[in-house]
């Protein structure tokens, strides 16, 4: 019996010790004085690029080690919000335009407007800089990358249908005509237009001279005629035989449909092209990319637009005076680091002049993909839509869009609802 008691006491002590160490671990998560930094990202495809940045920095600064951690997109934001609420943000993390205003306006992020003594920021485009800004116009992240949306097409299907490949002369009419011809000739889908904002209808809205949010972000634009017309055009594409309907896309992502030879065209972000080349080696040479078709008769403007988003590297407001973190951030925005990132061919670095590195990354393949098209599109890029209430309305607008696609509400009514949802979110702040 005595022996048993002693064992019990020992076990209790051990258990308590474990709890204590567990607390100790979580407590040191935010600390970075020991030269160990964590970098939280959400894109597995970019892990190698980030790791190379970490390694390169470690080489120059042997006393700083950076651990790259990848979390899936959905989990990333759940985790980050909880971490921000409890004051345990990772040392360095990616920030997305969807969320940056929310974090910046709630004083969660360090102000990096005055990070550099020199003119480093002048090497970034206005859109890149704007993508890092809080509502107060200060910068809360160092620009990481910039992107455009491009049209991906299946060359074999175009050849079979005898249609010439998409190029910069293409308009929406060419898009629909080619789709019809391909469908008639091959029985495969033409342009696969699915319910998506950045990779879908936003581009069409801005090409037509409409907008989702007005310039000072005080009102939604779903009540603007130019927006409504573009939305009707885009949503209406699914009425054609050559376009699958939304229930199809609920089961099969357009990218999967495209690379399994079910459809001839869809819109894709430039940052995934490298992955597509690597993941579908048997498809190399059978597909290519082009600039987005333009609106033939825009309500205003020249009919050209592509949504351009950009991520940035951010850190917690607590690290405002943390030299280790700030120096690393500073280095991440340098030409050296940005060129290194571009050379991996996943994300195009935001630093101007790194485009060639990105294009050159595709030289590793026998077939030369026309990725230059993605670069050319920066001439008419539109900043990705965001405001401080975007996290509130994003999913609600998406639900409403699905109702439109599902026929539960008419297009007019649905768009009016979208408008109300955004305006209400803005009003409630």
């Amino acid at each position: 019996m005595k022996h048993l008691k002693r064992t019990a006491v020992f076990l209790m002590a051990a258990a308590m010790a474990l709890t204590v160490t567990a607390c100790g671990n979580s407590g040191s998560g935010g600390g970075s004085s020991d030269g160990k930094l964590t970098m939280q990202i959400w894109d597995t495809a970019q892990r190698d690029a980030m790791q190379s940045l970490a390694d390169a920095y470690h080489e120059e600064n042997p006393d700083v080690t950076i651990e790259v951690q990848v979390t899936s997109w959905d989990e990333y934001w759940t985790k980050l919000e909880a971490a921000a609420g409890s004051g345990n943000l990772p040392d360095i993390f990616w920030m997305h335009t969807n969320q940056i205003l929310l974090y910046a306006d709630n004083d969660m992020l360090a102000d990096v407007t005055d990070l550099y003594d020199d003119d480093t920021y002048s090497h970034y485009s206005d859109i890149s800089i704007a993508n890092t800004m809080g509502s107060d116009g200060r910068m809360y992240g160092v620009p990481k990358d910039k992107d455009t949306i491009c049209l991906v097409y299946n060359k074999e299907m175009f050849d079979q249908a005898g249609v010439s490949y998409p190029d910069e002369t293409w308009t929406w009419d060419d898009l629909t005509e080619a789709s019809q011809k391909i469908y008639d000739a091959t029985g495969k889908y033409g342009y696969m237009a699915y319910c998506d904002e950045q990779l879908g209808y936003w581009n069409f809205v801005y090409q037509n001279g409409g907008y989702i949010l007005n310039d000072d972000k005080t009102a939604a634009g779903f009540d603007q005629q130019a927006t409504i017309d573009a939305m009707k055009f885009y949503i209406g594409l699914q009425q054609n035989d050559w376009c699958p309907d939304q229930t199809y896309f609920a089961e099969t992502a357009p990218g999967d449909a495209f690379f399994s030879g079910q459809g001839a065209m869809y819109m894709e972000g430039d940052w995934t092209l490298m992955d597509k080349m690597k993941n579908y080696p048997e498809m190399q040479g059978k597909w290519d990319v082009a600039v987005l078709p333009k609106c033939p008769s825009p309500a205003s403007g020249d009919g050209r637009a592509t949504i351009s988003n950009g991520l940035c590297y951010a850190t917690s407001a607590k690290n405002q005076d943390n030299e280790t973190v700030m120096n690393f951030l500073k280095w991440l925005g340098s030409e050296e680091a940005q060129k290194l990132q571009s050379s991996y061919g996943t994300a195009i670095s935001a630093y101007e002049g790194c485009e060639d590195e990105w294009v050159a990354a595709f030289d590793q393949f026998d077939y030369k993909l026309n990725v230059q098209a993605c670069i050319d599109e920066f001439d008419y890029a539109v900043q990705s839509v965001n405001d401080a209430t975007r996290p509130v309305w994003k999913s609600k607008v998406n639900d409403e869009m699905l109702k439109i696609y599902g026929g539960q509400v008419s297009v007019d009514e649905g768009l009016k609802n979208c408008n109300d949802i955004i305006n209400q979110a803005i009003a409630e702040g």
Partner: protein
Amino acid sequence: MRKALSPAARKEQHWAWLMVAPTIIGLLVLNYYPLIQTFILSFSKTKTFGASTFNGINNYIEMFQSPEFWKATWNTILFCILTVPVGIILALLVAILLNAKVKFKSGFRAIYFLPMVCAPAAIAMVWRWMFNGEYGIINTVLGTKISWLTDSKTAIVACAIVAIWSSIGYDAVLLLSGLQNISKSYYEAARIDGASRVKQFFSITLPMISPTLFVTLIMRLMSSLKVYDLIYMMIDQSNPVLPDVQSLMYLFYREAFVAGNKGYASAIVIWTIFLIGIVTVIQFIGQKKWVNYDV
């Protein structure tokens, strides 16, 4: 009358407390504290990063006025109706077969238990492909062209089928343990009296296994009312039929973590707890009619 404890017995009692302390502390910290927090949160208007203000019963008013919420409640109940009875009956059938004298008995037991060991995400992934309306094997075998997962009528049925499939093994093992506790002598006596197999089942097996059946039923109902992961894996948020399939817990997830509306989401949780409470109370009252504890 309560007898005063001897000093030795009291000392023993201290030890008893100490021994269960880790579990109790764990329960308090990991289960009861969050439960209380959720309850408080359900009366709050939450903002991002953990800030919240007292909001009275507004979350509940908003919830009870929301058609989406009632739809989710109905979906959850429908899911229970579709999965629990069929699941339990099939599990009982499997348990009886596994209890019989068949070859490769342990092999079969392993096979039936296998779904329990698989990761739910992997299960959902495979079933999604099987249910795929365009290329799925289920349509190919049946010769049908049903969009299982994207038709509002069939989506919940498809989810229910997967739920039953993945729960049978576990339930069957529980019931099997109940079956093996039944003494063989009952059956011998019944055979001598000339009772048929069917008669034996209803007069011996069913009454004798009813306590185990009851526990299985309660557990299965609770987990069905809390269903989330399976539907989340099977039905994407871009799927137009989501409103016709989403359970209360799925709605909770979307409100709390997608829309960032944690106060309202907490009200949904409290409602779900209430619902489970009612169902369980009804079951405990109902069990007096059919559960047999006299062995």
